[in-house]
């Protein structure tokens, strides 16, 4: 029989919904960047949709991260010293490099217009791909090394976190490509990473009692309904069946992004509210709490602004390049 708590003390989640938004945005940006690198370097395709997603999601990711710091004005402290033993410190370098390199790549792509890709742009594409790997590695590593959080401190968590980032990157690319009336590059990656996610999550669930407790007792709707069904199974089925339909591709992509959000929401909040010292749960943050809605609205607004900025940057520079060529 368990101990009865006559007097107990609860703790709040210290990483707030802004952290969920950051990990979703930067993960999606990194996923799209890898898709971009693969498409450009292996398949010799332009992959403009993936470039727009990589640059705009990367650009939008910085502010939610700052918002999650309780002392955002002190962000310079990351750069005024060194802490190579901390994965977060490495991330503080990878993130600005990733943002700047993707924006620079968007600038170079727009400026050349319809001309073929030069060696410099090819090199920058490789750098963007490498930085995307660093982003995925640091975000997954930063959380999975925390031994005090058993849901994160597993092999399954970083694997699924990375797979959902790739899936979300492919999904967001499919949305942009559908809006541009193009088939694009994301469908195959979404299907492969979605299937891999199902396998990885299934194995993780079977082997980790902490995850099964979280999924069964505290986040069944988020993990089973939002993530697995709506966020993985449905988008994979739609992507497989949507060979020609741009609408279905767009819907599939949107659901894949939602799946990545649902996974992060459930495992970030859920794990933080699972007590480290007792078999207890520190209350429930409603999915539509004021804080969550503020984060959702703020991140969506930032993302829309970033998308407009990056799209305008590429297109206006391309028009200018075209005029110069004609002249």
């Amino acid at each position: 029989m368990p101990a009865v708590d006559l007097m107990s003390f609860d703790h709040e989640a210290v990483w707030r919904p802004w952290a969920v938004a950051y990990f979703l945005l930067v993960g999606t940006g990194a996923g799209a960047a890898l898709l971009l690198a693969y498409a450009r370097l292996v398949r010799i395709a332009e992959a403009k949709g993936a470039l727009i997603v990589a640059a705009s999601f990367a650009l939008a990711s910085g502010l939610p991260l700052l918002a999650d710091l309780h002392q955002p004005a002190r962000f310079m402290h990351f750069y005024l010293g060194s802490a190579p033993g901390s994965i977060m410190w490495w991330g503080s370098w990878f993130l600005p490099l990733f943002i700047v390199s993707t924006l620079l790549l968007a600038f170079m792509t727009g400026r050349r217009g319809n001309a073929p890709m030069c060696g410099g742009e090819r090199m920058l594409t490789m750098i963007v791909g490498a930085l995307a790997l660093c982003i995925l590695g640091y975000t997954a590593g930063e959380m999975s090394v925390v031994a005090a959080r058993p849901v994160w401190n597993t092999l399954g968590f970083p694997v699924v976190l990375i797979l959902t980032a790739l899936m979300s990157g492919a999904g967001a690319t499919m949305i942009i490509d559908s809006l541009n009336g193009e088939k694009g590059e994301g469908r195959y990656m979404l299907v492969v990473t979605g299937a891999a996610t199902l396998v990885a999550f299934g194995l993780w669930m079977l082997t980790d009692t902490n995850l099964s407790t979280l999924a069964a007792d505290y986040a069944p709707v988020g993990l089973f309904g939002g993530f697995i069904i709506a966020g993985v199974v449905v988008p994979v089925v739609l992507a497989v069946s949507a060979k020609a339909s741009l609408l279905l591709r767009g819907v599939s992509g949107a659901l894949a992004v939602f799946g990545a959000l649902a996974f992060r929401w459930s495992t970030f909040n859920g794990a933080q509210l699972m007590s480290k010292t007792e078999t207890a749960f520190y209350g429930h943050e409603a999915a539509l709490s004021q804080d969550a809605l503020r984060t959702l609205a703020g991140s969506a607004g930032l993302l829309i602004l970033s998308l407009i900025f990056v799209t305008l940057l590429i297109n206006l520079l391309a028009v200018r390049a075209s005029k110069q060529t004609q002249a």
Partner: protein
Amino acid sequence: MNSRREFLKLAMAGSTAAVAAPAAASAQAKPKRWGMLVDLRKCIGCQACTVACTIENDVPEGQHRTAVPVYELDGPNGPSQAVLPRLCNHCDEPPCIPVCPVNATFKTEEGAVVVDAEQCVACGYCVQACPYEARFINHKTGVADKCTFCVHRTSVGLLPACVETCVGNARVFGDLNDPESEIRKLMAQHETKGLRPEFKTGPNVYYIGLDDRLASTVAVGGGARDLRQGLETSAHGEV
């Protein structure tokens, strides 16, 4: 300086300090290493330590540097009450220090784990890393906060507020490097245990009379938390 009684003895002997100075100097040749021993047989769960710490360190309402959860455990003679004062364990291998991206948290020469409030960016990474739930982001200061063994008091020869106020002398504070200190003598006389040995953090808070069921994750339910959350024991809400 090991307990309130010993501290008072030392204070009363202050007039003979000049005579004792050479002996004290030789005793202090080895650096101090602070530790705390909690004798659970003496703790009555009065929360005086919780209140004293909160007042001494201006800890916001609802947050705690130390607190005393109270449990009911089954025993051979029926249910009995068990208390477990919790605080930062000032570990030898603190998981909170290497994760800090700005080197804001560190160990003092005496072994206390502290936070540089001017350097902390309040990313919360140390809060995640601590297996004892001893850290939090202070709602007033907006930076990481935790027990410091009352470094502002111990550095001027005073006891930590929780030790000073403990009505049953259940908390004993002192130098683990000094074999003549009360904490070392008590540790030699009794079996002591630390919390969460599976994390191999080398905690410097020790307990006399710690029930094995409380040493690691406490299997808990059906009590105050369920009542507070308005939940049935078996029912849970969505995150």
